[in-house]
């Protein structure tokens, strides 16, 4: 016990004795399991060697499309570009109606009304980044107002960023309070909290941030903004999936996992499906609990799907640019 005492054991250890937003003891008492980094990387590498063939591959490709958050987060996003993306989201392959629609379209708040109109009466949800994305360092009132604005404009899901500035300097309470307040501002919309794992440094930090975000009320925890070099990797996905498993075991609450950034190939996508399926079980392999945030992944998945159909290797140029 004394050997391990510097490690923060429970979420309540991170928080100030009196939380202004109030945390139920049962939730604050959630344990934070330390991460065995070597074991984690080995396990993740092992899961990524699994190969899927024929009908399993077809099922994985279809699932990858169903859980995809088709994303465009660029300064050059125009309403027309978002409309085109929404059309693709509803019917990913214009020539093949059997391809299911994606889970959601993820855009900047300003473009939420455009997406909401383009996706009206479709099963595709509108997701918006908000809360000072990607750094999360806009003034707090501005961030909160942005979240509320996005929801009012029609966002079904809101992706906010963890305040890494607060988290990394040990002001866990502040990071927690912001997420809890954001959850309230979301109302009925789903809240995804982006941890930006590439900036957290260690697996233990990722685990800690995951637990903090989940206890604060996140419906989903998400790896990355996609705006920095390091993004989702198999060990990070596994680390976060294990945190979600811990949370579910201890509180019974099922939190979703969204992996984003750098997922470009169908093979990467099914590696993540394997990691989540093996760690959290098949009940997590649904759009309600698992998402892949990506912009160029869809093309590769459609290419592989097409290869599976007629046996011909395809040409990337034949699939859309975005």
């Amino acid at each position, binding site marked *: 016990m004394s050997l391990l005492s510097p490690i923060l054991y429970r979420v309540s250890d991170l928080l100030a004795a009196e939380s202004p937003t109030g945390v139920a003891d049962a939730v604050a008492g959630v344990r934070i399991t330390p991460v065995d980094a070597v074991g984690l990387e080995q396990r993740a590498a092992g899961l990524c060697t699994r190969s899927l063939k024929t009908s399993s591959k077809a099922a994985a490709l279809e699932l990858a499309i169903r859980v995809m958050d088709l994303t465009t987060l660029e300064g050059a996003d125009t309403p027309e570009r978002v409309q085109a993306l929404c059309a693709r989201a509803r019917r990913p392959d214009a020539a093949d109606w059997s391809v299911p629609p994606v889970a959601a379209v993820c855009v900047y708040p300003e473009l939420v009304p455009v997406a909401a109109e383009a996706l009206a009466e479709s099963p595709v949800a509108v997701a918006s980044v908000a809360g000072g994305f990607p750094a999360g360092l806009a003034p707090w009132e501005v961030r909160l107002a942005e979240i509320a604005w996005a929801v009012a404009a029609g966002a079904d899901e809101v992706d906010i960023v963890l305040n890494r500035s607060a988290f990394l300097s040990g002001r866990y309470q502040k990071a927690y309070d912001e997420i809890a307040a954001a959850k309230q501002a979301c109302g009925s919309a789903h809240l995804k909290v982006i941890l930006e794992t590439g900036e957290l440094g260690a697996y233990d930090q990722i685990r800690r941030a995951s637990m903090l975000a989940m206890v604060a009320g996140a419906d989903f925890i998400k790896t990355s903004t996609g705006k920095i070099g390091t993004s989702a990797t198999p060990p990070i996905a596994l680390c976060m999936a294990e945190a979600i498993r811990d949370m579910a075991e201890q509180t019974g609450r099922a939190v979703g996992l969204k992996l984003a950034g750098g997922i470009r190939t169908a093979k990467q996508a099914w590696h993540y499906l394997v990691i989540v399926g093996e760690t959290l079980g098949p009940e997590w392999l649904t759009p309600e609990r698992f998402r892949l945030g990506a912009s160029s992944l869809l093309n590769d998945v459609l290419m592989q799907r097409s290869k599976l159909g007629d046996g*011909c*290797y*395809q040409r990337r140029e034949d699939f859309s640019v975005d």
Partner: protein
Amino acid sequence: MSSRLVVNKTYKQFVGGAFERSESGRSYPVVGAGGQLLAHAVQGSRKDVRDAVAAARSAQGSWAGRTAYNRGQILYRVAEVMESRQAEFCAEVLRAGDGCTEEAASRETAAAIDRWVWYAGWADKFATVLGGANPVAGPYFNLSVPEPAGVVGIVAPDEPPLLPLVSRLAPVIVSGNTAVVLASERCPLVAVTLAETLALSDIPSGVVNICTGLRNELVPPLARHVAVDALDLTGCDPGLSADAARQAAATITRVVSASTAERQWAEEAAQSPYLIDAFCETKTVWHPKGR
């Protein structure tokens, strides 16, 4: 008494500028003229072909974007590097060929080197010869320019092992195409040694990719690959060639095969600017002339 253990070379595929074993992990024995085992070559799979096409595809734009003069220099450089390794090529050809004499091997190597030089010279000239200004009824300049087709799949002939391979490869890449070569099934080792030369000759990664393995296994995925723009089936037997041409037609891939005259590998007829043209598309540009 020193009994030194011979260090044998592993003959690997050349894909994207790297020497790699097959993703399938397979190999097959290659026997020499006298029936003795020469080496185990990589038995590539359709996925290796796919990877080679992907490498060729990504290298094509920048290779075609280089100046013709620069491509000529690089092809000449291949000849230079081959010249300095003549002895190695002679030995490889001699080992592979049925009834090949030392003199014939040396003649073939020299002819192969000369062929690189010949095509290197065409790099900045073929567009002038094959393209040109067309007379049209109207106040326009009308210019035709040959442009590279893109990615070209080459099924290399079996015999002899070196000269035909060079004769089919050089005219493909000189115009800015990139190539995926299926080396001869019977004599793949010379092709791998050629790849080592190419790797030392300023040819950018992915411009030439050489896969080794069984024809029946590798030709169909190459022919059906949507990203292959032209196919040279010179090395296929008639049955396989007909099947491959049919498969290639499904994706509008241009199919080329050497004529009987072009198969006289050591003769003048085996080298021609029209072979460069066979792997080019003609772009025609209209430009207003004014008064």
